[in-house]
């Protein structure tokens, strides 16, 4: 029964390489750039491009752990509320005398705690789906923000706080650098570590993963906790950009974040998708929004477009699979 197996790089075909979803995203980004440069002669200016990213990267931080969550065939719609709550607590503390640095740390801690609670509830009460848990925490977390701040704004942060959302390092926006750093970190986590491998196992077959010794509960809690943490990171950047905060900030962020993840090729059924796809989708949707802004598309029209985008991002891979399977017969 001696048989040698091949253990070297699998077959590489040029066609196979380029038929990947992520190349489609690159193509679309290219198309968006073409469209935008037609709408505005200043678009392709480097400085302008970099500045444009500052407008949409604040929510991009949440996209990174959301990839994990959707890979697990779960979902987290409470992230926007976590942004609001951590931002509000930070502002509230600062305005009551707590030093800003500490307030920022607490902001991160609050976000982490909120995410952790999500994870615990989902894991301890398996009867409850992630949908219903994060639906209720979505309301609860923002509800707490409303209790704290009512309908007031809170701000007047120290001037250096501006740097997060508005500052530059060597000509490059700080927020972009921060995002790239985090993106690389999450990419490594997903594609180069045990943790990532186990996530993929869980997403494809949670039972087999469990029977193979993967600590499914622990990993799930970690994924949701990370979502909470990165929501708090978003809170820092968003609050910095706005200069103040209210309980209703980041409304609708969960929709865009999920759209970015799904458009990036991560399937809601779990187990499929890559970090690079989600990152590309961030820029695709971000620049698309920017372009729409150039033609003064109303905020409401934008809502419609985002909604349609989300649905199309999920529908296309599903229909593609269905029709190619039908053709194979």
């Amino acid at each position: 029964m001696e048989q040698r197996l091949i253990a070297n790089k699998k077959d590489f075909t040029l066609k196979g390489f380029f038929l990947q979803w992520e190349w489609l995203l690159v193509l679309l980004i290219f198309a968006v750039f073409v469209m935008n440069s037609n709408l505005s002669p200043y678009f392709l200016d480097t400085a302008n491009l970099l500045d444009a990213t500052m407008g949409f990267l604040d929510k991009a931080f949440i996209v990174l752990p959301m990839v994990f969550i959707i890979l697990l065939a779960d979902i987290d719609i409470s992230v926007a509320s976590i942004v609001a709550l951590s931002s509000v607590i930070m502002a509230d503390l600062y305005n009551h005398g707590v030093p800003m640095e500490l307030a920022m740390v607490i902001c991160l801690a609050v976000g982490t705690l909120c995410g952790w609670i999500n994870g615990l509830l989902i894991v301890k009460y398996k009867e409850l789906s992630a949908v219903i848990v994060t639906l209720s925490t979505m309301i609860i977390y923002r509800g707490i923000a409303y209790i704290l701040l009512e309908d007031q704004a809170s701000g007047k942060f120290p001037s250096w706080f501006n740097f997060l959302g508005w500052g530059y390092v060597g000509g490059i926006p700080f927020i972009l650098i921060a995002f790239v750093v985090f993106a690389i970190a999450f990419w490594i986590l997903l594609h180069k570590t045990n943790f990532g491998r186990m996530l993929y196992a869980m997403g494809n077959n949670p039972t087999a993963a469990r029977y193979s010794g993967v600590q499914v509960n622990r990993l799930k809690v970690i994924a949701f906790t990370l979502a909470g943490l990165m929501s708090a990171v978003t809170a820092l950047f968003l609050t910095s950009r706005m200069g103040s905060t209210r309980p209703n900030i980041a409304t609708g962020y969960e929709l865009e974040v999920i759209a970015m993840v799904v458009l990036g090729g991560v399937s809601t059924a779990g187990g499929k998708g890559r970090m690079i796809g989600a990152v590309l989708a961030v820029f695709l949707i971000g620049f698309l929004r920017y372009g729409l802004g150039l033609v003064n598309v109303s905020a409401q029209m934008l809502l419609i477009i985002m909604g349609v985008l989300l649905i199309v991002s999920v529908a296309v891979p599903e229909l593609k699979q269905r029709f190619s399977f039908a053709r194979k017969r």
Partner: protein
Amino acid sequence: MNHTGTDAAALQRTQGKKASLSSYIAKFRELGLLAFIVILAVGVQLRNPSFLTWENLNDIATNTAILAILSVGMMLVIITRGIDLSIGATLALSGMTAALTVSHNPGLHPLAAILVGVGIGLLCGIVVGFLVSWVNILPIIATLGMMNVFRGLTFETSGGKWVSAHQMPESFKGIATGAFLGINNLIWIAAVIYIVAYYFVSHTRTGRRVYAIGSNPESAKISGIRSGRILWLVYTIMGGLSGLAGVLWVSKFASAQGDTAAGYEMNVIAACVLGGVSIAGGVGKISGVLLGAILLGILNNALPMINVSPFWQNFIQGAIILVAVLVNAMVKRGIDRNNLMRRKI
């Protein structure tokens, strides 16, 4: 089920106790809700004697009527293991369209306005149903997306402007303020809907098949039940009811805005889970949902009466949903444990 190291006898005792509490809740949920409603009403009245006035009770009833109408639709959706976050937006879109229609055609019969609203609602529901049943998109994502689309459309059709009371003909406003035999129209409408719903859910094949789909979707497909069609139907009904609710809402509050009923879907979901509808699907009673809606309606009215700040409302609502689903889960665990113990192994 975490039993660590307790001795056998004590284990039997605690298991027995837990089992009976859970089955108690299951059997007597409706009674419990009723009791809670009574206690709540009495409690609030003690704190604020203007609670149990005829005017206030009428206010509660009309608000609850709308909530109840929506809840019965959501119940069907949740029974099929789905969820619909777009109903607030559908409500707004239908209400706005109806309001715009009557403001431009003041001679229009109010019934026509209702038909317009319901029609828009049905269209919205058909779209959502299509996405969920045919394209196979997860309900949470489909309704999250369409929620935005419908809301955006609401703003677009109104051009960002409100339709206010003086733009609405009396006949239109009269839909919600009018009464028949001394009882407000809305209550009549809700009553009719509940009777129809009860019949649908208990005495028609399609109604029972909705439960079957939620109880065991794979089995349903194999036994020849057209689960795709029924799923589509369920979301369409939800849309239609949202459309109806839209007209009633806009008539009652005599105003149609872009952000009408924003977030209202949470109220509806809360009413359903309070009423014992299981998020896991296959379980839900009309009587439970009705009581859940009434309880929530009273609560929403009562909180400002006892000086609870409106800014606490969100938190309380979210907490209610979470606690209710946790309790439902615990009850189910108790029942399952009971079934296991019955096996006499």
